[in-house]
């Protein structure tokens, strides 16, 4: 009996998660270690290195972890060439869409687990370090006001996080795209992958700038597009205006889809072992 599409996707996804498992554990160990070390420093030393410093440092750890996930996504594609497992994948009667979608899902899962745990650790530690009144202040910043269900501040943060997530997913898709393009060449495929990745991002930011110039969003500040992982988040202290954010998300989703389908097309038609 033919298995359902979701069953096939699930099996592929499980396979990709298994491929990421060891690294994820290492990343978590790394995040835990740094957090424990900093927390220990803060709690024992008399220095001025307070909750704020801690927050900044462990935010860096979170970004560091996300950066590792991002770097790892390059090898999630290329390792299947190197360890010959592509011989298992390529003859399967499934299209490139399933193969790359499951990889994307696996990396996003890894992002949530590694990013989520390190973020949680930071929150927990900060909460323990902070004085009661500081916590009060943060709550005030996020608290319900002006009768709406969620405060506008919290709402903005959620929006920015959503945008950051979409940008990150898009970045991963561009990684897939450049890896596959790189693999179309037998020589220098690593270098080609890198160059294609940079060029794709430059191209995207140029297009964004052009459109931006034409549409001219006047409110809010510019946020870097698809630059660094979590690029959307890095400028998040200054909120974007809703139309601009909406445009950003729609634009990112559309270009991601384009990159995704080009990737699977190249994989099906051009890639060889």
């Amino acid at each position, binding site marked *: *009996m*033919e*298995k359902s599409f979701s*069953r*096939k996707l699930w*099996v592929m996804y499980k*396979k990709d998660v*298994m*491929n990421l*498992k060891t690294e994820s554990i290492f990343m978590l160990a790394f995040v835990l270690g740094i957090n424990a070390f900093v927390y220990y420093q803060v709690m024992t030393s008399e220095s001025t290195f307070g909750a704020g410093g801690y927050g900044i440092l462990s935010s860096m750890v979170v970004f560091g972890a996300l950066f590792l996930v991002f770097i790892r996504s390059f090898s999630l594609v290329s390792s299947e060439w190197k*360890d*010959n*497992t*592509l*011989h*298992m994948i*390529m*003859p*399967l*009667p*499934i*299209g490139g869409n399933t193969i790359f979608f499951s990889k994307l899902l696996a990396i996003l899962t890894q992002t949530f687990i590694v990013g989520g745990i390190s973020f949680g650790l930071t929150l927990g530690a900060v909460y323990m370090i902070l004085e009661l009144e500081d916590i009060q202040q943060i709550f005030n910043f996020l608290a319900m006001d002006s009768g709406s269900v969620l405060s506008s501040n919290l709402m903005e943060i959620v929006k920015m996080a959503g945008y950051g997530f979409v940008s990150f997913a898009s970045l991963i898709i561009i990684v897939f795209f450049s890896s596959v393009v790189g693999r179309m060449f*037998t020589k220098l495929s690593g270098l080609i992958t890198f160059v294609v990745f940079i060029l794709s991002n430059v191209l995207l930011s140029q297009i964004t700038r052009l459109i931006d110039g034409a549409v001219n969003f006047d409110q809010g500040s510019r946020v870097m597009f698809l630059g660094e992982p979590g690029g959307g988040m890095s400028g998040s202290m200054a909120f974007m205006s809703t139309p601009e954010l909406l445009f950003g998300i729609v634009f990112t989703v559309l270009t991601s889809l384009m990159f995704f389908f080009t990737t699977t097309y190249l994989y099906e*038609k*051009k890639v*060889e*072992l």
Partner: protein
Amino acid sequence: MIQFKNVTKKYGKTRALDDITVDIGKGKITGLLGPNGSGKTTMIKLVANLNKPSSGEVLIDRGPISQEVKKRIAYLPEIDHFYSWMKIKDAKNFVKTFYEDWDDNMYEELLGFLELDENMAIKKISKGQRAKSKLLLAFSRKADIILLDEPLSGIDIFTREKIIETMIKDYRKGQQSIVITTHEIKEIEHVIDDAVFLKQGKIVLQGQVERLREEKNLSLVDLMKEVYGNGKEL
């Protein structure tokens, strides 16, 4: 049923296959024979859809190798293609998801016949056992087309016999087509129906093995020596 029509395959400047035209018959066991680098593996990879021809076309039942066609193909690569974390059981659960013709009974039976345990971690077992694991996955399906790329190379004599027995054991006459590449001709001498001899990307001799024996009074091994000049290239 598997047709190569003027197929040329180039890797950079080298021609792995040079204008090959051949029809591999349905319900036959066909041997693609020749020394290393003669193009045997390239032919298999073209059918398994791992490679694409530089020119010409490869057809199955007169059509291109579509997803529908790929459902009917079982491919056993020469290299080990398992993920490092896989146990035999994991590999089974992975493969069976994608093929309707997977047969659990056949799998269980073969597992015993090949003296494998499904909890074996594929990375840790011997070369012979890995070869048998690959065979297990390919033959636990009722696939119409089975592609075996050098299933005997580097394997001890007892395992070779097991492998050959597996091929014969559940062979469905007339329905199943097996294509096998090897340079161990002696081992498959009485297993193949048809032989295709390759040399530097070209077909130098092909035909029904029994007829070749009748006409030339030579074993395939001797025939091969004749074709390739005293076997020096082997």
